[in-house]
């Protein structure tokens, strides 16, 4: 079994001066490539016993009382580059509250904390790769980069596939947000079609009448390939 080589032009490069924090934190030498060994091909697996009943419900999982904000379902499927669903994938999310404030001592934004919003959730994908969260729509927020930079509404996602070499952290954005094309972090990605793949469309098929809207965000992890000839090749 092998992992498909990562196609770096669909990702941000390390050094992106428009996002100032990357300047001193980006390797300047070329990455060294080589065949993955069993360590990169294997990875931790997580069972459903890890999950609490409310882990994927950010509206109530902090205090049991509902958080303030626009209720939304965020759902989708985790697939690999071959188009196959990835079941059993641990999906962790974190986000600002409806006012754009994180529950973190380093976030001093004017918007208030919501006493009933913690800001994280997790789930494990089903056999068809599907996952679902209930949350509130996060607010946009200003951040110190350029003189007046704002993050669009977004949810951070962390994903584990079956291989440690598939590990991925990304961010989901919301269809129609005018801050998307202005965001220096989004603009670390050069390819406009790659940016589009981070923008979740409104999904009225999953919205619940008189309850919540829904957004659909599918995530693709690096492909894992196994061919019937592979063992023969290794023996040669």
């Amino acid at each position, binding site marked *: 079994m092998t992992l498909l080589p990562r196609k770096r032009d669909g990702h941000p490069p390390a050094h992106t001066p428009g996002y100032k924090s990357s300047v001193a*934190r980006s*390797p*300047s030498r070329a990455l060294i490539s080589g*065949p993955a060994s069993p360590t990169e091909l294997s990875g*931790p*697996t*997580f069972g459903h016993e890890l999950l609490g009943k409310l882990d994927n419900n950010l509206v109530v999982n902090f205090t049991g009382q509902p958080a303030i904000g626009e209720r939304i379902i965020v759902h989708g499927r985790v697939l690999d580059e071959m188009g196959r669903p990835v079941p059993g994938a641990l999906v962790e999310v974190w986000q600002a509250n409806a006012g754009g404030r994180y529950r973190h001592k380093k976030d001093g934004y004017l918007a208030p904390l919501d006493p009933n919003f*913690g800001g*994280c959730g*997790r789930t494990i994908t089903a056999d068809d790769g599907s996952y679902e969260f209930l949350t509130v729509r996060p607010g946009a927020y200003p951040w110190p980069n350029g003189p007046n930079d704002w993050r669009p509404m977004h949810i951070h996602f962390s994903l584990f596939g079956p291989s440690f070499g598939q590990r991925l952290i990304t961010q989901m954005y919301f269809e129609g947000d005018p801050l998307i094309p202005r965001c220096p972090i989004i603009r670390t990605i050069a390819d406009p079609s790659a940016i589009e793949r981070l923008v979740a469309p409104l999904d009225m098929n999953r919205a619940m009448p008189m309850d919540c809207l829904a957004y659909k965000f599918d995530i693709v992890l690096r492909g894992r390939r196994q061919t019937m000839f592979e063992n023969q090749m290794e023996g040669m």
Partner: protein
Amino acid sequence: MVQPLDYLPETPSQTAGPYVHIGCTPNFVGIHGIYAEDLALKPFPAEAPGERITVTGSVIDGTGTVLRDVLVETWQPGADGRFGPGAQGFCRMPSSLETGEWVLETVKPGAVGPNAPYIALWIVARGINIGLQTRMYFEGDDLSSDPLLTRLEHQNRIPTLVAKKTGDGTYRFDIRLQGEGETIFLDM
């Protein structure tokens, strides 16, 4: 015209940002009550066989500043060179908010195939646009036939992948993101 290749492109990476702990180690930043404990605080249970080791390290940027908001994940086999079961062998370490140091208490990994024993690392933080993959080998091990290390063009960079022995069962491993002594990062 030919048939389209209907493969899917990998979802682009985005930085983990300054608040990665809220999602990955919420208890560490004072968000209690959602998860009973943070994920993968220790890679192995106390009774796991093998030599117990402690690795202390830090991640340093191109100006020489230690990162205090970095998250380091490790994945390794047990002392017998086998992986798992479950998440055994996986550890997630937020660096200290005060000193930037992280401490890995684990068992020394066994060798897998022709590779010298090593622990795989994955590093994310604000300012890192895509998670950085690297490896930690161990001073004192025979590294002379490791398939990755032997084919490196710049053999003088190998020490950046080797944890230094500081005592009985203790090691030091500093990761330099950029510039003088830059750690080798991998694309595999």
